[in-house]
């Protein structure tokens, strides 16, 4: 049994469980065996002093829902071994929030272009600084701060 740090409830009545980040993979594996077979989304929240990774689980048999949260400073274990769908969700969280998932097979940016500077959903992301995506000779994207022929 993995220790639960604390429990809470969201406004729509779903249980929120806080788990230590070292235990997240084990805890989710337990939950998956308990019947929470759906991983709806993985997301992150930037609380300025720390980051939080949020897992939304669903049991397709009982219809029960569960939110699992883990505090982190930017690194956490990947759950791609449990759910195939976690792949893209973790890539997106890395892309937009800069949370690194250890053990992810292909942790690359998914929505933004490769080479983008910064993670936009961080609260300290500089919004006024524009970045331009250009097409390189070999057909791949490159990002620069000055405007070239790109968009």
């Amino acid at each position: 049994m993995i220790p639960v740090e604390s429990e809470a409830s969201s406004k729509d009545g779903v249980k929120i469980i806080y788990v230590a980040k070292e235990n997240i993979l084990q805890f989710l594996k337990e939950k998956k065996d308990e019947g929470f077979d759906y991983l709806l989304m993985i997301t992150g929240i930037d609380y300025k002093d720390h980051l939080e990774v949020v897992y939304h689980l669903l049991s397709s048999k009982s219809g029960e829902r569960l939110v699992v949260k883990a505090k982190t400073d930017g690194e956490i274990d990947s759950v791609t071994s449990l759910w195939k769908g976690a792949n893209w969700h973790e890539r997106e969280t890395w892309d937009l929030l800069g949370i690194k998932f250890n053990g992810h097979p292909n942790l690359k940016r998914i929505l933004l272009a490769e080479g983008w500077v910064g993670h936009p959903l961080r609260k300290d992301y500089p919004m006024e600084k524009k970045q331009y995506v250009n097409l390189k000779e070999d057909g791949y994207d490159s990002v620069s701060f000055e405007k070239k022929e790109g968009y």
Partner: protein
Amino acid sequence: MQDKIVEVNFGPQHPSTHGVLRVKVKLDGEVIVDAQPIIGYLHRNAEKLSEMGYYPKAQIYVDRLDYAAALNMELGFVLSAEKLMDVQVPDRALWIRMMMVELNRIASHFIWLGTHGLDMGMLSPFFYCFREREKVFRILDEITGSRLLYNYFAIGGVYSDVTPKSLEMIKTWLSDFDKNLTEIENIFKKSYVYVARTKGTGKLGLDDTISYGVTGPMLRAAGKKWDLRKNKPYLHYDQINFDVPSQQAGDVYARMLVRIEEMHQSARIVAQVLDKLPAGDFYNKKYSKPMLVRIKATGESYIPTESPKGEFGIYLVGDGSAIPYRFRIRSPSFANLSAAPAMLIGYKIADMTATLSSMDPVFGEVDR
């Protein structure tokens, strides 16, 4: 052996990728040996934009997620926001929302059916579907004042009441809807070529479906009778009779059957709402728009809704100010599309368009 394999980029500009999907395909002759979807060409970061303004302001970004079913997107947002802000909604508004959402679901499925026909190499159903969709749009236009992006649902109700004229329009539209839809659906079902091409194509088993987090019609086509309108009723779906269609095969043909049956059921729901529509206010008079901007909210909420593509909801986290602290969109198309490689590898290149279009991805929502 290595030079036998050809790498082809499908998209981002390709006639059948429904927007800006790019699939890197490795081909061995006509057989797909590897397929990697590459997304992000329509990325606006709606989440960041929504975290920059007051709660009601986020609604226009939500509208533009799944532009084919904007009202369903708005519903996910207003339900979540109302829960977070403890806003009560009058009964009539709930019924109106239900009706509007089902109308928009029909419009969305019509786009899908038309473009699906186009992807399968036949132009005609596209026009028939857009003709029928136009009828739905006339109704939505009459009620909301716009055709594609409505901004109609508000936190605390809806922006305008349904008029007797619009109800009359819906009644006349309902009277021959089933007949017209059956006509179009027969083009597909009774075509030998269509059935031969789609049966057994793009198969995704139930285990994979759940593992990838695939929801909506694709899940129902894979053999699970799972519809949030039945399994976790929101609005007043528990007071209405409708069936959840499901198929066992999990292929393109099954998805087509499920979606078409869903349209019939949506029409059934609309007809029942017309009968049950109660009188009363259509918005909560306590919350005017200037008032809404001032509501401060804490805690978090996520209300899942059944959008035409699957489970849609918005995960809102408030920090005690009038601006959402975290605004996360659970996008069904994103999760559905992540299952694409499993459905493409091993099939022919000609199946690729059928499979991709059977997923019904809308890129406003995938790329957000």
